[in-house]
């Protein structure tokens, strides 16, 4: 049932002692007979204390909250130092794995640049099919072996004695013909290059770095499926 503001006005006038004798008499009569009105009077009397308590309740709640937040007592995600340390280690490991993965994907690490250095498998392949075949002095060599044979599905690693003084060209051309099929400018100090499978068609080729007089032959045969 709706509360009539007029009833509240009446109660306020009663509380301020502003009712006439007749109004006062009616007020008490109604208080005895009308339960809703009795409840309204009781509620009106309780409201100042209720409002005060409600205000205190909120203030205390804020006090407790700020005390706990200030003293770091609350909202600890982990509840003891061992858990915290474990979480830190796990996070660190995850971060390391992610960084390594991303770096690997983008070939940020120099040892991972496949263009310049052979992987372990490539090295095995070189040992099998290539290896130093020419030693003009104790530390000058070239690979693969002169006349080495590769399949078109092989990655071919070319190695040579690095030249530190200037840039130079790595060139592959058709055997006995001056038709260049692949060439790349090398950086000073570069001593290898990887030719991915399928870069050049099967056939007889020669390669050289810097000086065409040091050219070596190799053969790529078609892959048998």
């Amino acid at each position: 049932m709706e509360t009539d503001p007029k009833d509240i006005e009446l109660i306020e006038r009663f509380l301020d002692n502003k009712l006439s004798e007749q109004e006062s008499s009616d007020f008490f009569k109604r208080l005895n007979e009308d339960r809703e009105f009795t409840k309204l009077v009781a509620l009106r009397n309780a409201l100042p204390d209720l409002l005060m308590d409600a205000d205190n309740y909120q203030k205390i709640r804020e006090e407790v909250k700020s005390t706990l937040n200030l003293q770091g007592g609350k909202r600890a995600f982990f509840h003891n130092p061992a858990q915290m340390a474990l979480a830190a280690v796990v996070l660190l490991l995850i971060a390391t794995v992610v960084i390594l993965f991303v770096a690997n994907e983008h070939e940020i690490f120099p040892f991972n640049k496949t263009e310049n250095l052979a992987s372990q498998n490539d090295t095995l392949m070189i040992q099998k099919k290539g290896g130093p075949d020419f030693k003009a002095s104790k530390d000058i060599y070239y690979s693969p072996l002169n006349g080495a044979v590769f399949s078109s599905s092989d990655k071919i690693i070319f190695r040579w004695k690095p030249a530190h003084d200037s840039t130079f060209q790595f060139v592959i051309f058709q055997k006995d013909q001056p038709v260049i099929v692949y060439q790349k400018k090398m950086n000073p100090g570069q001593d290898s290059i990887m030719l991915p499978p399928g870069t050049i068609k099967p056939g007889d080729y020669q390669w050289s770095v810097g000086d065409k007089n040091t050219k070596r032959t190799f053969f790529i045969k078609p892959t048998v499926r």
Partner: protein
Amino acid sequence: MKIILTNFVTKFKKPVLIEKFSEEELVKGLEHGDGKIISFLYKRNIPAIRKMTSHYPNMIFEAEDVLQEGMTRMIMNVRSGKFQGRSSVHSYLYSICRNICFKQYAAVTTISMNDWVPELAEVNDSNYFDLLQLVFETKDRLDEKCVEIIDLRFRFKDKQASTSADSKLMDFEQIALLIGIKGDNARQRFSRCLEKLISAVKNAPGIDDLLTSGSYGN
């Protein structure tokens, strides 16, 4: 004031807080809102509250929020004298927290609030705190003019007057002078504003018990 003893056999387990606060110190600390006591009580009781909240099936309670609310209610009860020291501070706080959870649990399950555990009866005043929250929220939603006239009438801003028993209410003629309207208009405005508050709380759970308990409006 407190000693952290570490059990060497299980030294990687959590340190055990051994309290050096007496019951009296705890009660006084709560009464005065002592940060050290509040923080101590929180740390001392949070493991038990976490364990308790985890036992409710199909309900996820934030133990930290439950304990924070429990401590708020505990302070209210200490300050109002409802806490009479029949049980220890920790037991009382635990019971309040259990009531908070039980009430929320009962609201979403078929369990009746009549299934209240007898030992909790002492602190079964959840309705009262819900009512305070409702009163606060309702007042918060009132417009500024309403809040102003209610505060003036009940002398909430006038600490000196609110403590003297003989002048608890401000006369509407005085209010009218302060806010620049006529006395009758001030009474009408106050009545309209109070009606909004009364309508919001008059059917709230526990209001009848509260009004008949005699603890308000005397």
